[in-house]
């Protein structure tokens, strides 16, 4: 299955892209996606091992199970306000 990944702020700079697609086997969790991205993207290891993530615009934990077509966002430490 494919999930679309969004990268913001510092993370987009570190990986040199703000958007990419990840192919994952099923079932897969957020933790699996993080591991895949960190292991396969040319600069993936620049991401921290346990970044803040959102799935479909909602904060989730790394044990969240992903579905085909999910929008997975990697969020640097938040600094709103």
């Amino acid at each position, binding site marked *: 299955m494919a999930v679309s990944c969004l990268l913001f702020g510092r993370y987009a700079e570190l990986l040199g892209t703000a958007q990419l697609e990840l192919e994952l086997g099923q079932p897969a969790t957020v933790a699996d996606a993080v591991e895949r991205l960190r292991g396969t993207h040319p600069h993936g290891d620049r991401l921290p091992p346990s970044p803040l993530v959102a799935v479909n*615009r909602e904060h989730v934990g790394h044990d969240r199970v992903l579905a085909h077509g999910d929008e997975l*966002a990697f969020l640097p430490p938040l600094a*709103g306000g």
Partner: protein
Amino acid sequence: MSGDVVTRDPIDVGALLAELRDDGRGATAVFLGSVRSGPDDGPVTAIEYSAYEAMVGEEFGRIVAEAAGRWPGTAYRVRHRVGRVSAGDPSIAVAASAPHRAEAFEACRYVIEEAKQRLPVWKREILADGTTRWREG
């Protein structure tokens, strides 16, 4: 809520208050957060805000729904700037309107504290010498 939560334009507090006007709500509390350039902040002239804009709208909606459930009879308007915001200019506004002042203050406080913890927004400080740096928190 109504209107765009994320805005590139200066925040118009008067417009937010006008939208909230209601004869049954006698108290409105407003929190305005502005770009700070104090003695401990270095020579910050502006902040460039970026956001996961679709999620900011949804997360603010969840926060406001939580507050409305906790303080019945309240209503809210919220805005967050993106793009370049000069020192001294507001970057976030929360207006909470309630029948009485106690709920208005409490609800406004709840929304801004949750927003600080949960909104996917990032800031890059622009310093007087033109350099920039990511700022956390």
